[in-house]
């Protein structure tokens, strides 16, 4: 039996498949595209190409328990269970970063940013941005488009620049602010640097509204970004760990939940 976790975010869909011993067999990411339903269908096909069948067909029996998470979790009509990304990120992050006790997880996602306090493997508190895109991946994406670069280049530019203050918290108004900086002839590096700094500030403010554990880790799309983790560490005054695997935290947490679910099922079946 395989255990598959599917995390459909607003920008990217992340997939992790675990073996019966809990070893990561597959790990991949595809763009969500315009429809999470289509993304779910594509994922089922990609998995089937690897011999992992999420539904019963004429040729193959279902050989994987599936747990879906992320904003598109309900679009995965073949999932055995749906769990919110908050719980999944918490579970996945604790394993990824090998933290045993308390850990604070910062997940900067495409449309939401979450700060999750995990104590003894259980979510004990979380905060999420309300009705506003400031401090999310979307903010960076909008600004990168405006500067005509992709997200990776945006960070490369930011690293080389001196941050100019972006004071507007609203994405739409901040874009106007950026446009006026462009009109003033300020360098792309400095503008990019200002944008990234404003996101770090906003995320750090959110962190401070909650009890932070001694260990703080960064998951989600920006997790592989050491520059961003360093900015956050600076704002919070405590180290923030990042990892190239961090974007898979939600999918990993979902796969772990699938494993638990599958094991419980076979245990109960064996008993009866």
């Amino acid at each position, binding site marked *: 039996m395989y255990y598959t976790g599917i995390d459909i975010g607003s920008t990217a869909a992340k997939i992790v498949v675990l073996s019966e011993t809990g070893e990561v067999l597959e790990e991949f990411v595809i763009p969500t595209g315009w429809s999470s339903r289509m993304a779910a269908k594509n994922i089922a096909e990609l998995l089937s190409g690897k011999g992992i069948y999420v539904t019963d067909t004429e040729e193959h029996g279902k050989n994987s328990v599936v747990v879906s998470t992320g*904003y598109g979790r309900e679009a995965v009509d073949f999932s055995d269970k749906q769990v919110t990304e908050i*719980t999944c990120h918490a579970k996945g992050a604790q394993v990824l970063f090998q933290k045993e006790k308390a850990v604070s997880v910062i997940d900067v996602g495409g449309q939401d940013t979450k700060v999750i306090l995990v104590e003894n493997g259980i979510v*004990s*508190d*979380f905060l999420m941005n309300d009705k506003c895109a400031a401090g999310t991946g979307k903010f960076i994406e909008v600004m990168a488009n405006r500067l005509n670069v992709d997200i990776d280049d945006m960070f490369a530019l930011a690293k080389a620049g001196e941050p100019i203050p972006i004071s507007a918290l609203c994405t739409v108004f901040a874009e106007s602010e950026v446009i006026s900086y462009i009109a003033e002839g300020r360098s792309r590096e400095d503008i990019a640097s200002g944008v990234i700094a404003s996101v770090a500030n906003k995320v750090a403010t959110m962190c401070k509204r909650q009890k932070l554990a001694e260990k703080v880790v960064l998951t989600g799309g920006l997790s592989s970004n050491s520059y961003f983790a360093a900015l956050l560490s600076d704002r919070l005054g405590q180290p923030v760990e990042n990892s190239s695997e961090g974007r898979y935290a939600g999918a990993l947490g979902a796969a772990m939940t699938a494993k638990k679910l599958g094991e419980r099922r076979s245990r109960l079946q064996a008993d009866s």
Partner: protein
Amino acid sequence: MQKLPGNFETYDETRKAGFLKVKELKESGKRVIGTFCSYVPCEIIYAADAVPCGLCASSEEPIPEAESVLPRNLCPLIKASYGFALTDKCPYFYYSDLIVGETTCDGKKKMFELLNEIKETYVLKLPNSRDYPEALKEWRSEIIRFKEKLEDFYGITITEDKIREAIRMKNKEREVMTEYLSLGKLYPAAISGYEMGSRTDAAGFSFDIEERCKTFAARTEELKQYWEEHIKGTTSDRPRLLVTGCPNMGVRDKIIKAVEELGADCVVIDTCNGIRTQLDKVEETGDVYDALAKKYLNVTCSVMSPNQPRFEEMGRLIDEFRVDGVIEVILQACHTFNIESYNVKRYVTEEKGLPYLGLETDYSQADKGQIATRLGAFLEMLG
């Protein structure tokens, strides 16, 4: 969770059905006073042979119009209430002889100045603290001034006997409502939070207080009997939640209904449209104005500073209703509840040792998905 009866009328349906009632009421010569708040001593209104009619709006429909006058960054309840008046779309506003406002939050206070241009709006000067001896005295004379205003407005005399009669009648209603809203104390819960909220808010659109008492008493009996026969002695793993914060009728579907569908029971609604204002009765002996002033100054809205009684009462409700977690609803740009939420979270998590979820939202459906995620994660956290 208790199922809703087949003939259950939603808040919106009852609100619409009330349109005709208020029209008939007016045509029969009855006096109608529009109100916005649980600080308004409605006994004075009843004593003037008038009926109070709640005008707090819960729909986003008139908000764009309201924003042609009011700033966007203002609480949706204020914008919607003003918007209905401005667009002349609310029969309850239309049929009100007089509007009664109060100096509660800054947003309402300033909105009333503008509302007065559409229809005469009389504003009660509510002290913003209970913690100085003059507060109660000031509030008492303010209530007398309100009585005099109604006497003047209608050309009538309001006797103390009439007020005392209204006090008794309202107290009776409070008893009935408290009993109904206490059904959540039972384990497993005998009522859903969605029903409690919908019915309580909709009750404002049926104007006969005795009929209202009868309806609620009958429903309480019905639910109790169902519980005795079908629910008592069974087990339920559904977490029991207390909902606090701003009045939530405009977000009830998005939050209370959603979380109950996800698998929790909102057993107690600790807001001004919930049990909060029903528990405390008005003393029936002694000076009527003293008694009214005392009761209505004790309403535990966050406009009061400091607001310790809110925490004490919430603590009691958490214990009595055997609550597992607390959800606080903040309407966007409601500064007083928003700031006070910091202390609510601290109180709930540190003093009561329970999980707390704060949700800041407005009347739009834009954040429905994000709210469902937060609610889902909160329930996963409760286990």
